[in-house]
């Protein structure tokens, strides 16, 4: 029997057995689509975290001098307690490093805490108040939507001016213009001079609920004891220069802290690598567990498809017997079933790919989860979906085709 004859026969059968073909097709479709979508979420979150999240928190080629690392997964209590006993970072440390670095960098001070910001009778609670120096906006890559950032002069003089995150501006001023208005932070009035561009969210956490004020403004007492910083931010032009700056900063700090060569640093020089390492731990779980669950469900789905197909073939054992009694060879029967299963699996997988990609885009658009299609998932989805469909169709047929025609014909 020529191959096109097998295909023609397969198409006839598929048309004749719409329900069974539909179910098998649906099985492959759902399997492929869900694998691509779930993998897409894992992939998207992972990429987002490594590419965007780390840079949102740290900025490119940027490191932070802190008392302890910002992201600290699975730290034993003893280490944690040791960190808490470390001396804090002081204004004077920041100044010493600024003067000591020979690499061209821009720097900023940063201290943050949660506060309530109010305007007239409106309040915005739980707002991230950051007392920072003027280059903070550059290092954090915070574009100004309206108004302006504060200047170095305003920072040094501790002027009571504030730059609002978009969410805070909306909450306090709704549609009215916020510029020039006076908001109260810790009982002190601050003049609004700018609003930062929309930042969106990370994994559902809003990034627009903040206020930035000059590091030396009265609010410095709200975020830290006098003369103390949460972090000193240093941004270099390149990765290489950043590494040089880190080593210089380390030397400066060690000498300021009078550390002997064998003593460990009692401060942290944190880069986005740290957060990426922290994330790598979580992402291993994410990129193995989620697709793992999907693969398990695909296998279960595959067993279901296989069952449907097995039942269908059992029903068709008589047909196989009849075809053999009319002169079909075993290979003819196999070819017919192969063509049939392949057609169903191919169509199912094709629609599955489209739906999976579509679903990934929809998830990306309407949920806080960033999702993006991973090519590997498409390949794996097709291989598994089509493989299950084809094996499930051909294997039972091959068993039936081995029987004597009369045995197959008599099977109920």
């Amino acid at each position, binding site marked *: *029997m020529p191959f096109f004859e097998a295909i023609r026969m397969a198409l*006839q*059968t598929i048309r004749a*057995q719409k329900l069974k073909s539909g179910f098998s097709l649906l099985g492959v479709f759902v399997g492929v689509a869900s694998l691509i979508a779930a993998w897409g979420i894992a992939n998207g979150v992972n990429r987002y975290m490594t590419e965007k999240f780390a840079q949102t928190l740290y900025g490119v080629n940027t490191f932070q001098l802190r008392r302890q690392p910002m992201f600290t997964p699975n730290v034993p209590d003893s280490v944690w307690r040791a960190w808490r006993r470390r001396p804090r970072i002081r204004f004077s440390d920041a100044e010493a490093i600024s003067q000591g670095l020979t690499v061209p960098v821009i720097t900023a001070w940063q201290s943050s805490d949660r506060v309530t910001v109010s305007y007239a009778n409106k309040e915005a609670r739980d707002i991230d108040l950051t007392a920072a120096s003027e280059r903070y906006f550059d290092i954090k890559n915070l574009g100004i939507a309206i108004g302006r950032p504060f200047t170095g002069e305003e920072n040094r003089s501790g002027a009571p001016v504030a730059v609002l995150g978009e969410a805070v501006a909306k909450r306090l001023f709704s549609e009215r213009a916020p510029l020039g208005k006076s908001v109260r932070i810790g009982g002190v009035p601050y003049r609004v001079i700018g609003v930062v561009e929309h930042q969106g969210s990370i994994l559902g956490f809003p990034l627009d609920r903040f206020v930035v004020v000059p590091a030396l403004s009265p609010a410095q007492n709200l975020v830290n004891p006098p003369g103390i910083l949460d972090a000193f931010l240093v941004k270099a032009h390149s990765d290489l220069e950043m590494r040089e700056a880190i080593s210089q900063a380390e030397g400066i700090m060690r000498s300021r802290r009078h550390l002997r060569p064998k003593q460990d640093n009692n401060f942290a020089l944190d880069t986005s690598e740290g957060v990426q390492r922290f994330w790598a731990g979580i992402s291993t779980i994410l990129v193995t567990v989620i697709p793992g669950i999907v693969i398990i469900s695909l296998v279960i789905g595959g067993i279901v498809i296989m069952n449907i197909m097995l039942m269908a073939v059992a029903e068709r054992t008589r047909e196989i017997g009849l075809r053999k009694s*009319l*002169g079909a060879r075993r290979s003819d029967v196999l070819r017919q079933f192969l063509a049939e299963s392949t057609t169903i699996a191919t169509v199912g997988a094709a629609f599955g790919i489209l739906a999976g990609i579509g679903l990934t885009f929809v998830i990306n658009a309407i949920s806080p989860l960033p999702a993006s299609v991973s090519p590997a998932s498409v390949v794996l989805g097709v291989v598994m979906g089509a493989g299950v469909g084809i094996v499930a169709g051909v294997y039972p047929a091959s068993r039936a085709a081995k029987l004597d025609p009369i045995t197959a014909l008599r099977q109920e």
Partner: protein
Amino acid sequence: MSAVQLFRTGDTPRPDVIILTHKLTREYDMGSELVRALRGVSVQIQKNEYVAVMGPSGSGKSTLMNLIGCLDTPTSGEYWLNSQKVSDLADDELARIRNKEIGFVFQTFNLLPRADALHNVELPLIYAGMSARSRRERAAHALERVGLGNRMDHKPNELSGGQRQRVAIARALVNEPSILLADEPTGNLDSTTSQEIMGVFAELHHQGQTVVMVTHEQDIAAHAERVITLRDGIVATDQARAA
């Protein structure tokens, strides 16, 4: 019926002997017991004979028919069809024999329910590797021969029992087989339709077709010119009838 050749193991049948079985046995292992459906059947059938195989149920007549039709494989013994020793053949060669040499008519018709009459009759030609056009012509011609030229696009459930059996006969004949085998061809039909089908068989025999059919009805067997009776898996009687 001419004189029967005495056949011994190692011999080859005479060319005019189309079917020859020699000490053919078939046993079924039913788990707890061994069922010996055929216990050594030796028959010879010549070209253009019309033979009825009779016997009570369980006598092995259907088993013999399935072995002659290559739908089943014997446990031991020889089976020669058209001077070819079929009992030795491999699966694919058997498929070719079933396709070219044998036309089988079943009691239950065994048509593909979702295919129309024409496609059902076409099936053996597909496996013979014939092109689509000549297939259609041959299948249509075969249907016309059994008087169903105007029912080609009907599905089996749109046909009466007699018409279904005619489709099955057309399918059996479409490849111009050496033998037409029928296992209780009238078993599912009323007596009028049965007579009709017997008329078709008689006509085919008249045209030179070798016909072997299994039946347990005397009046159906009466259409044949020779009756072989089986009992307990062996040949009990084998006699020619007055035509």
